[in-house]
């Protein structure tokens, strides 16, 4: 039996208030008034699809060992790198390299489901496969997309042991129906008229595909307990369900009011949402539309209730901070030519040879543990840092990303350049041993205190825009 064995999700902490966006733009786009409700997730300045996928993957692997993963598929339409294996960055951050096949899947909003199909197929022979999907899409100022989109990620571990949602079947069709596109020369989507997309696209492409999938699975529409179908048109999933005999009550909420549409990740984000509340025997259909359609059908098993707790979508959704400052959203997305000052001009060139030598330290947050005195330290060095030891060549690698730490000292620095001043940073100490001066992220004044408990999170430090956008990643501390 192949299927999903674990799930995880990630949602940025900030939630952009849509009314605030509308209030700023209504002089120009009064027609957006109907969308000025609720909130959408908003990536912090140091988050992109890779960092969100790493967090979702860590959430997913709460119950499983990363080193057992044999394949990583990373789906997105906003991979930070066009030519550099984005999925491989996730692997390195999870400290998985050996025996790993890493693959990026993109080019369509159904990339998430395509990756899941590929992941399930790859894990049939027993090779645990991690499928991560994340998107952080740009949208033009005063567009409906700006209000509808959200940033987020999901991750699913596929395998054959302790399956919580068994794959019943899948079906795909592929046709070049261009409802929208994003060319190589643009940061933004360009879309055609919604009514045409609904009538000629969804209505003519999706129902026959669902019917074929149901037939292949020997199921009727009424057998489906959870119907997952992302769409920017909220009425469409209901309409599709009705056309194939799936009950209206099965149609899952699009999470538009609180999260927004997370692009290529959204079908999987909604699947995690469904899995969190699903019961054994529930049948889940996932439909993703984008130059064709992918359909997957799962049946929840009794193993689901045995899956150890994790934050999941609900946990990350509950970690929330409202953001009413639309200017900040624009600035974080480099949509506002803000005066960053001369301190933002320092060269951010990365020595790739150094990064390669130190990748376990920088991407994996792997420190060292001294075999002689047992001291844990970061970074790992050739001479033990313990003043009463100083043994040479005595340290074994010691992974620290998953350890909780606490604040020994900190400051809020208004002098250094930060896209979100003041910059919080401080000395963090790990109870097992080890400490370093770390940048903090997702931190507010009232949360950062001496002794505060922190967790490590994989983030962007710098973006080397002088060289076309080389993102420097490292770990930051964030309040638990």
């Amino acid at each position: 039996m192949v299927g999903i064995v674990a799930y995880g999700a990630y949602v940025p902490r900030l939630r952009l208030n849509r009314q605030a966006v509308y209030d700023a733009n209504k002089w120009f786009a009064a027609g957006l008034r109907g969308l000025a409700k609720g909130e959408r997730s908003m990536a912090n300045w140091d988050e992109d699809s890779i960092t969100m996928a790493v967090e979702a993957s860590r959430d997913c692997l709460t119950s499983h060992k990363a080193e057992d993963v044999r394949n990583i598929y990373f789906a997105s339409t906003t991979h930070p790198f066009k030519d550099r294996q984005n999925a491989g960055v996730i692997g390195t951050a999870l400290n998985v390299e050996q025996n790993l096949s890493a693959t990026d899947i993109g080019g369509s909003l159904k990339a998430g489901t395509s990756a899941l199909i590929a992941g399930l197929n790859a894990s049939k022979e027993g090779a645990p496969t991690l499928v991560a999907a994340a998107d952080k899409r740009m949208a033009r100022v005063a567009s409906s997309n700006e209000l509808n989109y959200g940033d987020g990620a999901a991750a699913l571990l596929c395998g054959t042991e302790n399956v919580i949602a068994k794959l019943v079947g899948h079906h795909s069709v592929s046709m070049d129906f261009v409802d929208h596109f994003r060319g190589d020369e643009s940061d933004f989507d360009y879309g055609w008229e919604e009514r045409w997309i609904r009538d000629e696209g969804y209505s003519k492409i999706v129902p026959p595909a669902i019917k074929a999938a149901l037939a292949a699975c020997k199921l009727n529409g009424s057998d489906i307990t959870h119907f997952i179908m992302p769409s920017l048109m909220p009425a469409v999933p209901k309409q599709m369900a009705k056309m194939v005999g799936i009950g209206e009550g099965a149609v899952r909420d699009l999470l538009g009011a609180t999260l927004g549409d997370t692009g290529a990740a959204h079908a999987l984000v909604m699947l995690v949402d469904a899995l969190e509340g699903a019961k054994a025997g529930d049948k889940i259909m996932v439909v993703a539309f984008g130059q064709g359609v992918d359909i997957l059908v799962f049946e929840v098993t009794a193993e689901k209730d045995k899956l150890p707790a994790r934050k999941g979508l609900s946990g990350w959704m509950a970690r929330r901070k409202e953001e009413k400052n639309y200017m900040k959203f624009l600035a974080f997305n480099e949509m506002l030519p803000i005066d960053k000052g001369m301190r933002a001009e320092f060269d951010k060139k990365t020595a790739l040879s150094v990064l390669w030598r130190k990748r376990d330290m920088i991407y994996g947050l792997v420190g060292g543990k001294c075999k002689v005195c047992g001291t844990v330290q970061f970074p790992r060095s050739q001479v033990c840092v313990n003043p009463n030891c100083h043994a040479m060549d005595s340290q074994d690698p010691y992974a620290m990303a998953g350890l909780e730490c606490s604040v020994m000292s900190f400051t809020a620095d208004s002098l250094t350049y930060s896209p979100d001043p003041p910059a919080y940073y401080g000395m963090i100490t790990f109870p097992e041993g080890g400490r370093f001066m770390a940048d903090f992220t997702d931190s507010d004044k009232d949360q950062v205190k001496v002794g505060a408990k922190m967790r490590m999170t994989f983030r962007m430090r710098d973006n080397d825009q002088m060289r076309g956008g080389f993102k420097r990643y490292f770990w930051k501390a964030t309040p638990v």
Partner: protein
Amino acid sequence: MARGIKDKVAILGMGCSKFGERWDSGAEELMLEAYKECLKDAGIDQNQLQAAWFSTAIDEVHVGKSGIPLSMTLRLPNIPVTHVENMCASGTEAFRGACYAVASGAADFALALGVEKLKDTGYGGLPGGRGGPLQVLWNANGTAPGNFAQLATAYMTAHGVSGEDLKKAIGHVSWKSHQNGAKNPKAHLQKAVEMDTILNAPMIASPLGLFDCCGVSDGAAAAIVTTPEIAKALGKKDIVSVKALQLSVSNGSESGHNSWDGSYFHTTRIASKKAYEEAGIKSPRDEVSMFEVHDCFSVTELVTMEDLHISETGKGWKDVLDGFYDADGKIPCQIDGGLKCFGHPIGASGLRMLYEMYLQIQGKAGPRQLKDPRIGMTHNLGGAPRENIASVAIVGRYE
């Protein structure tokens, strides 16, 4: 312990440029300004110099590397010139090199000159940059005020000092230095400042406000050293000799091992203890007449006075509030105005501190002159509380 260099080296002459935003001068002009005064004070001919040490810390924004800039600017007689850089301890490091040359017998006359031209970057504060190709991949996006601000948070935690008490104490540190700097024509900031202004200044890196931070300025200072015997033979009176020169450098235990609580300078404790030994000082609180310490930030000075073994650990803030370190207190600290009023042209600062000690011991400090000082101690702290170089110099009357 080795025998040390106590009384083996005398300061023959010193010079110090006007510190400040010297829009009129580059590093070369500043070097000459200090050097001309120094050479005249020493009373020797340039051709008698046999070796020189040249300190700068951020030379990539002014003179560039090597000993060449000093030799070129002064047109030195093709003598050995060594360029030294040890962050904020660089000036003292240049002095140490020159003193060791004389103490060893390798040179009869040696020059130490430090300079920093910081105000050609186009922005306030120290020039940025976060180190080498590995450091930039993981070091926190910090600044000097942000690193030293954490000394304050850790100190409060370690000793149960309230934010309000600490803010008052470090405010007093700056208030006192401004009082002193107002009497010094070479200082960058020559203005007394009200406590209210200090306490209500904008935050730079919490809890450090604007007046908790020293200025950023341009300046140079120089010393020519020789042996006490030669100084005497040249007819010098009131000879100032070197009693001790010590350095201590972090090895990573503070930044990487959980035994350090962030509230003190491990290296300053070590360097000062060794310096007292070298100088034969048994009870520093009774024997040292005055201090020039590294007040890059007000809290640095406060904590340093404990680590120099003058104030009790955790009680320094009370001594400060009691006026112990004021100009009319038991041991005046920063009688020239300190880094607070001079600013901190990095390569020059250690020598500028020695310049004030030298003037005071000779009774030449004008309106700032203290009554009969015999022993003066300077201290520099380069780097950050978690990783640094502490340098200590003790000079005094040659008796």
